[in-house]
């Protein structure tokens, strides 16, 4: 035990330490980048006193692929496949944000038909992504079976994606001003089946098997408490923010793609089994969000059936060359607010600059703050509860 746990945090000492800071009973444990549960190639340096963690310092950048530099060298539509590779668990949501940004730049308004399909795809992707998030979270805590059950159901969503656009992981689906493919015949029925099965089987099973498990609650409910103030000050977004009790969702706050037409609730952490903003709450928000997404999908499917079918590539520009200007657009990706800042210089067909505001990156920046004075096993629970995807952090 050391004084470090109760020491007030200042920004200078919160990021690094010198070798003299390590006490006689303490040891530096390097967790990752090749570690089974750092969700990719994250490396965390821990100062541990036995099982107790005094300080944790995350190191990122092992998956850096020069995304932003690449974007400057390809044309506007050419960026979309790169955006898919940011958060590779939720590619649909990534390309949506970029498409919205460039559409704003080119002043294109996609048809309601296209927007509705985008909503369905984004919400299906949200369910699929949260399936992985919650499933791997259970696996981090030692429960292997829920993970495979959830992956089984994610598979059905991926099948629909494959059916629509031919890809299962990286879709290149949300094009600027439209979509790469129209939905196939029978798409609505397939989606309805997925939603019905999700509501009837997957969700209750998940809550029974994992979320309601006493050990799971004990492991997560009093761990990694992010207060409302801390969450806001570190700019946590998405389920991480809502887990701390802040009901802020871009789909409600700044609706895009016609989200204002759908009825859905914004689930927030309730502090049911412990202090508000714990790992359990963040995870619980994801679980409830899946259900809300299913609700949105059913409404969007109803809407899609009533809407007049239009050509989904109708408004896709032949050659995207926006006038000089800059734009920032963001969308509620499964992991939080994913923002794209795109600068056009008016002379070239490639962006002058693309900057991504990553929700996982901000979540990781709050990590060291809550990782003080916890145990090694809690570090794993913490990483999982923030649900970071290193592809999006490192870009």
């Amino acid at each position, binding site marked *: 035990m050391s004084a470090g746990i109760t020491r007030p945090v200042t920004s200078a000492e919160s990021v690094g330490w010198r070798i003299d800071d390590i006490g006689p009973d303490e*040891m530096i*444990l390097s967790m990752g980048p090749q*570690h*089974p*549960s750092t969700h990719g190639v994250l490396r965390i340096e821990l100062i541990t006193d*036995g*099982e107790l963690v005094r300080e944790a310092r995350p190191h990122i950048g092992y998956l850096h692929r020069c995304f932003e530099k690449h974007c400057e060298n390809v044309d506007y539509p050419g960026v979309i496949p790169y955006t898919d590779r940011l958060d590779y668990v939720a590619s649909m949501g990534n390309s949506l944000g970029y498409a919205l940004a460039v559409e704003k730049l080119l002043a294109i308004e996609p048809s309601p038909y296209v927007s509705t399909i985008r909503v369905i795809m984004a919400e299906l992707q949200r369910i699929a992504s949260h399936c992985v998030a919650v499933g791997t979270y*259970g*696996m*981090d*805590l*030692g*429960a*292997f*079976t829920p993970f*495979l*059950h959830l992956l*089984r159901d994610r598979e059905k969503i991926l099948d629909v994606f494959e059916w629509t656009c031919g890809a299962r992981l990286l879709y290149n689906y949300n094009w600027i001003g439209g979509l790469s493919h129209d939905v196939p015949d029978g798409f609505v029925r397939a989606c309805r089946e997925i939603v019905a099965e999700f509501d009837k089987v997957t969700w209750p099973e998940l809550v029974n*098997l*994992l979320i309601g*498990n006493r*050990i*799971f609650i*004990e*492991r997560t409910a009093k761990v990694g408490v992010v207060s409302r103030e801390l969450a806001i000050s570190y700019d946590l977004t998405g389920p991480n923010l809502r887990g701390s009790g802040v009901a802020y969702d871009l789909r409600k706050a700044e609706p895009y793609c016609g989200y204002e037409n759908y009825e859905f609730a914004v689930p927030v952490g309730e*502090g049911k*089994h*412990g*202090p*508000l903003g714990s790992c359990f709450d963040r995870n619980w928000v994801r679980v409830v969000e899946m259900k809300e997404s299913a609700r949105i999908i059913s409404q969007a499917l109803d809407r899609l059936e009533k809407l007049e079918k239009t050509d989904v590539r109708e408004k896709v520009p032949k050659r995207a060359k926006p006038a000089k200007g800059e734009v920032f657009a963001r969308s509620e990706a499964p992991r939080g607010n994913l923002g794209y800042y795109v600068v056009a210089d008016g002379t070239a067909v490639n962006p002058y600059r693309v900057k991504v505001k990553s929700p996982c990156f901000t979540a990781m920046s709050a990590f060291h703050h809550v990782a003080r004075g916890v*145990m*090694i*096993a*809690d570090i*794993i629970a913490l990483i999982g509860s923030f649900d970071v995807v290193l592809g999006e952090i490192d870009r």
Partner: protein
Amino acid sequence: MDALLRLFSLIPGWDQNVPAWASITLAGLVAAGLCLGFMSLGPVGYVYVERKIAGFMQDRLGPMRVGPWGLLQTIADTIKLLFKEAIFPAAVHKVMFVVAPCLVVTGAFMGFAVLPFSPTWQAADLDVGAFYVIAIGSLSTVGLIMAGWASNNKYALFGAMRSAAQIVSYEIPAVMSLIVVVMIAGSLSLQAIVGEQAGGLHNWFLWKFFPLNVIAFLVFFTATLAECNRTPFDIPEAESELVAGFHTEYSGFFFAMFFLAEYTEMFVASAMAAVLFLGGFAAPIPALQTVGGFDIGPVWLIAKAWALVFVHMWLRWTLPRLRVDQLMHVAWKVLLPISLFLIVVVGGLLTWPATANGFPWDRWVGWLLSALLFVYLATTAARAWRWHARQVREAVA
């Protein structure tokens, strides 16, 4: 060994020509060989069964490719492990690195020596059999610590420290609940303990002093589950935290030895639970004890042990893992008080003499007393829980 000696004396002229020490040595060697064969071939079965059970629970098929229904999969894996190179990282302590898995396997294997498979099929009927199993089980702890230390790897060291703390802690409730059985049987000999339970299902120690021994069984089962490092107590090798715990640096045959030890320990622990509470080799219905004049006690013991092994596997594929402090909490603040309480109550019930007129009034009084104690404990627990919930509510507000 008795059975082997009897077998030897059937050979004409054996008793006259072979000295006693030689025939005992030979019988011992044969018994050891049989146990060793059982132990080394057993895991092939357990691993296959575990994979199939995991597949069943996870909505998939499990091994299907090698042989019919994947039956040969574990054999193929075993052969692969035997032929793989055992990698020695540069910084390991070579001697301890090699000795550690041997010690772990030895510790697991020696438990077999006293398991009674039938009145005669037992390698050695020690007077202190129950004590011996517990004592020899701790030997593997030494091996685990050695493995963790010799690996010269921080994760391995963490795993070793965790396993030492865990096994030492959980041995205490295991022994305490074992004492309950020993008090009832009046002997530490496993043969005598099973003998007391012979004659059918209703004689099993599980039903004695009805709710009490069921609790003792659950305590014993939980504690041995922890001693085997199985989920939810698998923190020494928690793969999501410590990569692979104490055997992070092991590969090839040495890794296979740890694996062997784990599955063997699982079987020994389950067999011990079966012997102590479920009648061991005694059949649930006396008529089923022999088939065609043959004593099928071994089948009963193995069936009971496998049923418990199945529960081990079931738990493993269902539950998340506890944290280190919660693990200690369960051992010291839940299991240990319960088992101490059981010792006191069962001891009290055993020492009250039966009344002269035949009706055990004192037993009934004992029942009443223990029921009252239970009610008291339950209300205390409920009150503690409510208090805790209130604290949490106030903390949130």
